[in-house]
């Protein structure tokens, strides 16, 4: 059991204007083990969208922490999530990313299960000379202790001891609503998934999505490409929904006393956050065809928010990035310095063919490990990881911008939505707030410490195993 002093790695002293992270947060394998155990395997984790399993008997496979999971829709349309491992001897039950099956037959000894996870056939059971005790165990698939769906976003937990999902997501739910409400039929994933890896810690991805400060520094080639295209009249190229260098500062907002505000960042409890940029309602956005309809349904303020750039992180493993296009990202940590990403283009159901094609082109242009922007992000993660083991400068300086502004009531734009933020910061294009990261690490610290405490309590209530006692004696 780890005695690691987690609090000592997050130098969090708001009263002194200090927030610093120790680099080992990104590079210590022992911390990674704790994260898997205490965050990914004892807390809510995003699994996918329910529109990935729309029909009875559809299934999709995923992971929670280090463990294989399958989400299934049964014959009545109910969704459930199970450990994707046969109760007999553990063989993986479902092998494909997604599919449709009424009965799942295990390949190893042919036990079979229906789409509600119930055992339907135990091969040659009658001749098997099982003792009566065998049936004291359920032979059904093991359901995840918790599974809930919020507006199509499916979450599961390997521990029953978690908050209700609505409470866990809290005020961040409004930004799921804003994304989902862009269509009366909700969101879907455009067919085609893009997966990639990077040689860096998973929290580098978590942070980068919320990092406004990097944009003009990391992506000058992309911004310059946009300027080149604009000069050439966009002929044969993608018309982007973000601005190049020239257009960024020139954006005009209504003169309402807030026209100097370009965007901001907002933090919620349990590690969720949003950063955002103001956008005008204009036809470079695929949603423009619904601008009037959305205004009628949801009012102008909420409609305008649908056009804003919004990068939403739901801690710990999912991000909805709506900036150059709309992306759903699922983060899967593999080891302390390796991460897998699954990325999808997420889109409102029922948009016109032209809007959908525009969305997809904007997506490929910016995102994808083969796009014009994402590779420059991920290479940066690798270059950060490379330096995070050094013992000479263990404290990072990347979580301090915005300290003088952050507070609970700083954002009239968020107020228009009736959202209560934990902390907000707004400002001009050059603000690049970094206090948005604090909620990640405060939740991170709380979960790791809670895990340590729970394990210590469990250890106290049980006699130490014989082998451990032996070690004690020998010492």
């Amino acid at each position, binding site marked *: 059991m780890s005695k690691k002093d987690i609090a000592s790695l997050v130098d969090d002293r708001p009263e002194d204007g200090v927030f610093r992270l120790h680099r080992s947060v990104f590079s210590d394998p022992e911390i990674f083990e704790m994260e898997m155990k205490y965050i990914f395997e004892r807390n809510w984790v995003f699994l996918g969208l329910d529109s990935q399993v729309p029909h009875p008997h559809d299934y999709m496979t995923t992971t929670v922490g280090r463990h294989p999971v399958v989400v299934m829709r049964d014959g009545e349309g109910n969704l459930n999530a199970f450990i994707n491992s046969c109760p007999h001897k553990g063989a993986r039950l479902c092998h494909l990313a997604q599919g449709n099956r009424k009965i799942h037959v295990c390949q190893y000894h042919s036990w079979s299960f229906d789409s509600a996870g119930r055992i339907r056939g135990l091969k040659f059971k009658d001749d098997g000379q099982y003792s009566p005790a065998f049936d004291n165990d359920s032979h059904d698939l093991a359901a995840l202790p918790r599974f809930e769906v919020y507006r199509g976003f499916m979450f599961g937990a390997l521990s029953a001891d978690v908050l209700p999902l609505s409470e866990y997501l809290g005020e961040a739910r409004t930004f799921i609503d804003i994304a989902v409400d862009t269509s009366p039929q909700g969101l879907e994933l455009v067919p085609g998934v893009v997966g990639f890896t990077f040689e860096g810690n998973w929290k580098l991805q978590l942070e980068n999505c919320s990092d406004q400060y990097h944009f003009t520094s990391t992506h000058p080639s*992309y911004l310059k490409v946009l300027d080149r295209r604009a000069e050439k009249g966009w002929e044969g190229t993608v018309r982007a929904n973000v601005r190049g260098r020239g257009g960024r500062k020139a954006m005009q907002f209504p003169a309402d006393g807030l026209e100097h505000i370009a965007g901001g960042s907002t933090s919620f409890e349990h590690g969720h956050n949003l950063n955002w940029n103001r956008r005008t309602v204009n036809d470079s956005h695929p949603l423009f065809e619904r601008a009037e309809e959305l205004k009628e349904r949801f009012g102008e303020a909420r409609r305008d928010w649908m056009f804003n750039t919004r990068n939403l992180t739901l801690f710990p493993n999912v991000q909805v990035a709506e900036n150059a296009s709309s992306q759903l990202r699922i983060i899967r940590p593999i080891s302390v310095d390796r991460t897998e990403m699954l990325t999808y283009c997420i889109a409102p159901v029922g948009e016109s063919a032209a809007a959908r094609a525009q969305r997809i082109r904007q997506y490929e242009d910016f995102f994808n490990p083969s796009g014009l922007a994402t590779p420059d992000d991920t290479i940066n993660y690798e270059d950060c990881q490379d330096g995070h083991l050094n013992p000479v400068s263990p404290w990072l300086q990347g979580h301090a911008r915005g300290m003088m502004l952050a507070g609970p009531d700083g954002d009239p734009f968020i107020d228009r939505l009736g959202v209560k933020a934990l902390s907000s910061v707004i400002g001009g294009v050059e603000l690049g707030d970094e206090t948005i990261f604090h909620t990640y690490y405060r939740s991170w610290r709380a979960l790791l410490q809670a895990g340590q405490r729970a394990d210590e309590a469990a250890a106290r209530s049980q006699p130490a195993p014989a082998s451990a006692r032996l070690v004690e004696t020998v010492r």
Partner: protein
Amino acid sequence: MNQALTPAHAAEYLYREAHLLDRQRFDEWVDLYTSDAVYWIPAWKSEHQPTENPETELSLVYCASRNALVDRVWRLSSNLSVASMPLARTAHAVSNVIVEQAGDDTMDLRSSWTSHVYNPKYKSQHVYFGSYEHRLQRVDEGWKIARKKITLMNDFIPTVLDLYMV
């Protein structure tokens, strides 16, 4: 070469294209393409099925003009993209060239390819592989590429994939 292509000439055309990528002669490479060329790397939608319709499904790269390729090539040597500094070193091998259709003005080819990619910064390497479908088209100066579809078989990508790596 303003004449019908023999299969041997067509295969050599593909080797020359790969050679220009490996030598990082990107301006010459992009000049192989017609102004309305389609350059397409589909994504995969399941274990068995690449995406088929770029208007409704996601691609890794979908460029519908030479201009779009010129932008990408510009970025590679702009010194403004950290993912392209330093550029990886690559060695393509194109093989199993099959002429699917040969007319006076167009020729459709299928082939297999591998590309060894070496990243000098981290001294790491990777092999991408898959199949090409080329449509060559006769133009005044000879033959150009009107369409290239790259099916990438190992589509779980280590950090970066760019035009010259596939």
